[in-house]
């Protein structure tokens, strides 16, 4: 074709038509649409299960929560004979202290290990072996951690974990669950650190920063949102665990006095926790007080869900905050 020549109208119209038809939509993308439908269905199933679950417990606990919410929050675990005194206060206290132990022990140790593995350790057979084992630990059933906790914290160091309660205390429970979530914290923190672009670190080293400065000013701020999400999700996991707590001696029956929630001395006394309260009450089907315990169990589940939800809201907020900070 001779370039530079002005095309006559007919030719240019023909070219336009050919181009228009070649880039126009040709029917529907059947495979693509089908795939999208499948994905939508899976999402729908997930949502459906969740909605049914929440509806079920809210309905079951509705009466308790609406008529005597305050009393229920302040009530005690064992008094089935006095339905008006039944409540989750001791369970909430136990779960609160477990969360504190997880935050104090699992987070620093887990994040520290992750930083070491990711930033300092040499990548050799030994470090790969360690990482593999951490991954395996994350998959160990929680009851096994219960056994470990029983052996280490309850029977091993009762003089520390609970001189008056034979080691069966919130301290033992908190330490056990801290150990349980440790691998999860390490793995998520490691993944967050691994996602730090290498260019960022090189830029820092390039102007003469030390490894510590690079980690402190580049890697950690960049990985903070990811590390945070992982740790707080692991916290939710710890709060929902029941099986290990039974082994470290959570009380299922009557529990003496009601201390203040911030009464640190009480963490070495006998204890219970939300999942234990719920398990205990749901087992009271076909007993005399069934109609007291079953609605209360549903109400306790709602309380636990709100507890976890609040935690996740904090996680989302903090994540957002750190992400903003990272961008600015």
């Amino acid at each position: 074709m001779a370039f530079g020549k002005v095309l006559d109208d007919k030719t240019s119209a023909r070219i336009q038509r050919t181009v228009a038809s070649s880039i126009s939509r040709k029917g529907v993308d059947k495979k693509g649409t089908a795939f999208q439908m499948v994905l939508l269905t899976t999402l729908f199933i997930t949502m459906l299960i969740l909605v049914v679950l929440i509806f079920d417990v809210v309905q079951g606990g509705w009466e308790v929560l609406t008529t005597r919410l305050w009393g229920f929050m302040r009530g005690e675990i064992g008094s089935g004979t006095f339905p008006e005194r039944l409540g989750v206060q001791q369970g909430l206290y136990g779960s609160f202290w477990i969360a504190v132990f997880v935050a104090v022990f699992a987070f620093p140790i887990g994040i520290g290990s992750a930083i070491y593995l990711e930033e300092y350790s040499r990548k050799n057979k030994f470090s790969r072996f360690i990482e593999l084992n951490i991954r395996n630990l994350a998959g160990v059933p929680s009851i096994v951690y219960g056994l470990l906790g029983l052996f280490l914290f309850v029977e091993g160091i009762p003089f520390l974990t609970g001189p008056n309660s034979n080691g069966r205390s919130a301290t033992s429970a908190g330490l056990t669950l801290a150990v349980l979530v440790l691998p999860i914290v390490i793995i998520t923190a490691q993944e967050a650190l691994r996602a730090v672009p290498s260019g960022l670190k090189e830029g820092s080293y390039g102007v003469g920063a030390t490894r510590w400065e690079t980690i402190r000013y580049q890697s950690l701020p960049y990985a903070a949102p990811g590390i945070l999400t992982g740790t707080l999700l692991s916290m939710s996991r710890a709060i929902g665990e029941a099986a290990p707590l039974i082994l470290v001696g959570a009380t299922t029956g009557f529990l003496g006095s009601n201390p203040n929630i911030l009464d640190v001395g009480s963490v070495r006394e006998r204890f219970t926790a939300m999942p234990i309260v719920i398990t205990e009450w749901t087992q009271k089907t076909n007993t005399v007080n069934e109609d007291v315990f079953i609605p209360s169990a549903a109400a306790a589940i709602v309380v636990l869900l709100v507890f976890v939800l609040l935690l996740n809201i904090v996680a989302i907020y903090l994540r957002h905050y750190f992400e903003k900070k990272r961008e600015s």
Partner: protein
Amino acid sequence: MSTASTFQDQSKLENSIAIPEMPDRETEPTAAAAPATVAAPAATTPTHAVELSTPQSHSAFEAGTAQLEAETASDEALEQDEVPAKNLVYKVNDLNVYYGDYHALRNVDLEIEANEITAFIGPSGCGKTTLLRCFNRMNDLIPTARIEGMIEYLGVNLYDSQVSAVEVRRRIGMVFQKPNPFPKSIFDNVAYGPRITGLAKRGQALNDIVERSLQKAALFDEVKDRLNNSAMGLSGGQQQRLCIARAIAVNPDVLLMDEPCSALDPVATTRIEDLMNELKQDYTIVIVTHNMQQAARVSDMTAFFSVDVASETDTRTGILVEYGKTEEIFSTPKDTRTEHYVTGRFG
């Protein structure tokens, strides 16, 4: 001898050797627990390494001079009318670089003089970046990377166990092939180095450094109204110039630039080239470029690298084909491969 102009001023060197008091170092307990490279940079500076061999010298600068004078003396003893001894910044001797089993660079011999601009040219994958990253021990960060042979910096073996990579990188700045601004404000990007090295922590002194660095990198006018905005919002070319500003903010002795103009328009490129010519008074510059005209325009020396394909094993290795004065490389190259490459007839 013109060594004095090479290394800026003495105070700068001393400044970076004496550990500047950093509030972070003092307040953060972890710093004390960090490994030796962090805790004791002073004990592991190149200076120290030199002092082992020449105890009377007090700095890398003096040591370099002393060594050079010694060399000159012995040269003069041998041949009276020899050309004056060169003021070497880098002396590369039979260098081989490997990434795991991969032999990336083979038998490189190279000498780089002070106050000169040296250009590395050659096809993609021939090892230009690899060699450049050896010059400030950036390859230490790649676990698989390994070097054999010798790189001397001011007469000090750069890979001596007494040499601290951190101190080396403070003196030898680098602009990376891919722009890598920090996800911080434009100001903080440039201020990062001065803050870390203790050159200036805050206040007017820091503002001045940031402004001057951005000016030199031909970026200041474009960003002066939004210094506190995120650097991630800059265009590719602006990011590249920001990285140049970041590198020169710490006043390095040597500047290693890996394709610093690859994303720049002709105007910005010209300003960067002007900057290089200006910096040349005080610094030594090594630049990797794919732009032949640029190499010819700005550099005093040119090294042409290529990939050597072993015919029987089909393994590829980077080699230094020819190194010499830029005019000679571009007008009368000795090697036909160089000639083909610089005239654009490279396959």
